[in-house]
């Protein structure tokens, strides 16, 4: 199979199996939304505020031992911000963490005092507000809405409106599923998570547009033939499949490295959450370009006047190979279709040659007069 992929001899029937993708996605989207309503999101200190301790950096107290104190008191380390504050006269450690019960706060206070060797009255404990102001969220949501509208218009102008709908659906799908994973696993949401979601959106959109570009190219190529839009999608998908696979590999490799090396071995926790979000999101992005974006466009385009007569016809296997190679549907089915129009019971085509034979022996390309 890999050999076939490498040589570009793959003839997978993506469009014919669209229902599997739609069903799987629908289930996941429903689960995500349900989880979001039931469990909500685990928002970090940047969104909800919390408590801040300021402890003189004396005795054994520094950023590392402060972290140890937290883990000794069973306070989850994710989302905690520990910084040193240096002024001309003294050095202090500022520890910010999400809201805690008064008992935990007291216990932490005395533990910090003990580590620093100071009286606990020298430690200041204050409530802190969120650093991620409401304005930031409102502005970001507004910006995203404008972004969707303008990019949809751009796609509609450059390609067609059906593709704008498809791109829109797949990007929303990716974001909903990524947020759903965060809600289901109750992973803490930090500003880095938000950026990770934006990153996912960027990837998903890019990948989708590359596939759309191929689809519109093939639509023109098959303009004179009776190929159905499902065929256009299948041919395009198979053509860009190797690129999609390679691109996904080369995009995910750095993330995997960040996940395993940065977070796993070197123990940078804040990075691991970022890498997890990216990893999940990129997988969804690669999946949705193939199983959401293109089939949605297919469903819409099949209703257009040009493709309505051939709606539901798909050249699979050998027929698809002929289509890829020659640029026109062949085989008895397609011929009967083109002669008698639709509505005739299609006769079963005799597999004339194997897929390999057709795709590895393409006719010599017609000589084009050079301009």
């Amino acid at each position, binding site marked *: 199979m890999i050999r076939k992929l490498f040589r570009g001899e793959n003839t997978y029937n993506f469009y014919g199996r669209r229902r599997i993708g739609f069903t799987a996605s629908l289930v996941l989207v429903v689960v995500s939304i349900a989880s979001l309503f039931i469990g909500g999101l685990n928002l970090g200190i940047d969104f909800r505020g919390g408590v801040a301790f300021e402890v003189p950096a004396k005795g054994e107290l520094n950023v590392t031992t402060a972290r140890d104190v937290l883990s000794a008191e069973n306070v989850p380390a994710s989302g905690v911000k520990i910084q040193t504050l240096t002024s001309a006269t003294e050095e202090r450690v500022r520890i910010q963490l999400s809201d805690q019960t008064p008992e935990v706060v007291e216990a932490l206070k005395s533990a910090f005092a003990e580590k620093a060797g100071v009286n606990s009255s020298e430690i200041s404990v204050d409530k802190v507000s969120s650093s991620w102001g409401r304005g930031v969220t409102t502005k970001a949501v507004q910006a995203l809405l404008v972004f969707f509208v303008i990019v949809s218009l751009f796609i509609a102008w450059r390609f067609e409106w059906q593709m704008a709908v498809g791109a829109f659906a797949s990007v929303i799908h990716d974001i909903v599923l990524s947020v759903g994973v965060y809600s289901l696993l109750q992973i803490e949401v930090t500003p*880095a998570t938000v950026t990770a979601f934006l990153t996912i959106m960027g990837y998903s959109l890019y990948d989708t547009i590359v596939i759309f570009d*191929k689809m519109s190219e093939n639509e023109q190529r098959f303009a004179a033939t009776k190929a159905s839009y499902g065929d256009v999608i299948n041919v395009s998908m198979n053509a860009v499949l190797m690129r999609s696979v390679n691109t996904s590999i080369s995009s995910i490799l750095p993330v995997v490295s960040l996940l395993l090396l940065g977070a796993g071995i070197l123990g940078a926790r804040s990075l691991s959450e970022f890498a997890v979000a990216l990893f999940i999101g990129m997988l969804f992005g690669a999946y949705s370009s193939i199983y959401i974006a293109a089939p949605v466009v297919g469903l819409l385009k099949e209703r257009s006047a040009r493709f309505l007569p051939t709606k539901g016809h798909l050249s699979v296997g050998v027929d698809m190979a002929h289509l890829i190679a020659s640029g026109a549907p062949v085989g008895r089915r397609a011929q009967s279709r083109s002669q008698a129009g639709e509505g005739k019971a299609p006769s079963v085509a005799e597999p004339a040659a194997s897929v390999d034979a057709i795709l590895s022996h393409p006719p010599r390309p017609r000589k084009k007069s050079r301009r």
Partner: protein
Amino acid sequence: MSTRRLWAVLLLFTVVVSGAFVANIAADNTPSLGLDLQGGASVTLTPMGEFEDGALDAAVEVIRRRVDSIGVAEPEIIRQGNTVVVNLPGVENQDEALALIGRTGAVEMRPVLNIVEQQAPDASPTTTTGEQTSTTLANPTGGVGESRRLPSTADTDETIPAEPSNEETPIDDGVSVPLAAQSGVPTEGGGEGSGLEPGQTVLPGAKDGLLYLLGPAAATGEVFSSDASVQVDQGAWVVTANLRGGAGGEDLWNSLAARCFAGGADCPSKQIAIILDGAVISAPVVQVPSFSGSVQISGDFTEVEANDLAKILQFGAVPVNFDAPTVQSVSATLGKDSLDAAILAGLVGVALVLFFLFAYYRLLAVVAIGGLAISGMLLWSVIAWLSRTNGLAFTLSGAAGVIVSIGTGADSYIMLFERLKEDIRAGRTLRNSATRSFENSWRTIIVANTSTLIGAVILWWLSIGSVRGFAFFLGLSSLTSMIAVYFFTRPAVLLIANWNRLNTRGVLGVKSSQVLGGEKS
């Protein structure tokens, strides 16, 4: 394109980019890192004297507004107990930022004498009359005058009907706006040759790109009580502010309102400008001669604009004054170990990608490696230069933006190489297919990157904080990778294709057994 020209493009581009890279290193311009990666300065503001609890929250919002206007450097503003903590990335050139944060922001009301569009000094000023403008002021409890719902000043273009009354002289009695004032620099009146009466000033609008000629300050935000609120009235957003009783509140406001309603020489436009931080936030037209109890400001506000205005009125009503800020240096939230881990992981990741490309595309991968290196150098140079000149700071969210573009950048090469392979398998020679393949994939690269760029520009323009940082670096790095593809990859691929000795399929890892239709290589 001739071989010679291809060489010229390739060499010139490589030299220019390497030159910029070396120049930045020589000038010791390095990208400055953000709060999360490098730390910076932590500024603590402690309020002076008595203050209301809600007033401090309003002050936090106003400070956030100011700090966010500085740029893309992603500052952090939190309220810690009864103090406001502002964390600023980087440690150089903090003075300007400190001056901005520590400034006491009083909200002022001034009568509007004239409005001009901000334009080049040599153009003649276009004047608009107050009547044609904007937001309106009405008294919701008392007899409301005609409550016209005209578009707000905030939405410049459509609203101020560009009515290019070509009259050189502004409509009001002889007060012409001096040319110097049109440059957007606030000018206080009274100085020799400024052409302004004492107390008059010219201030820019906060959003509308207009210049306002304003009379002396007639009241402060303290005429209102601190409960300005936002409602929907007849399908539009309105801001309602209650007036304080007595001489310092209702009476003061009404004397200003009466003057402006009369439209005399000291307030010909009938507009009152609400000013914060040297910018006109809103300039509503007075609809009734006197107000009792409360003032309603209506116009074509969006919800956010209405909320902004209400917040400013709340802040202006109970201004919080701060002691001199104390500054401490603050360490990175992510910590040195995280940064080192991220850099190491990033390098290993890039190495893996390059190894993968090499294993898959053989010799042509050299082009990809060169292209990625060139675009990396270009990106580094731009970031380093902007860090030095504009106080740009590279943050984790910025890194995310760059990661996206490394992925999409590698994709450009993969797309091109897949096209080439497709063509070679179909029997074309490398020389034959190179131009065609490049043209085909360049079209796709342009479309896909344009949509990324559109997205980045919109997010940068409309959002604040880390989203803005992400958008900035995403846009910048998409741009540099596109430039590298066109000026480096294109000539490099075409030159390799023209190179006779290399014109074999092994270059791409396509075995000749797979090629049909043109066995001779």
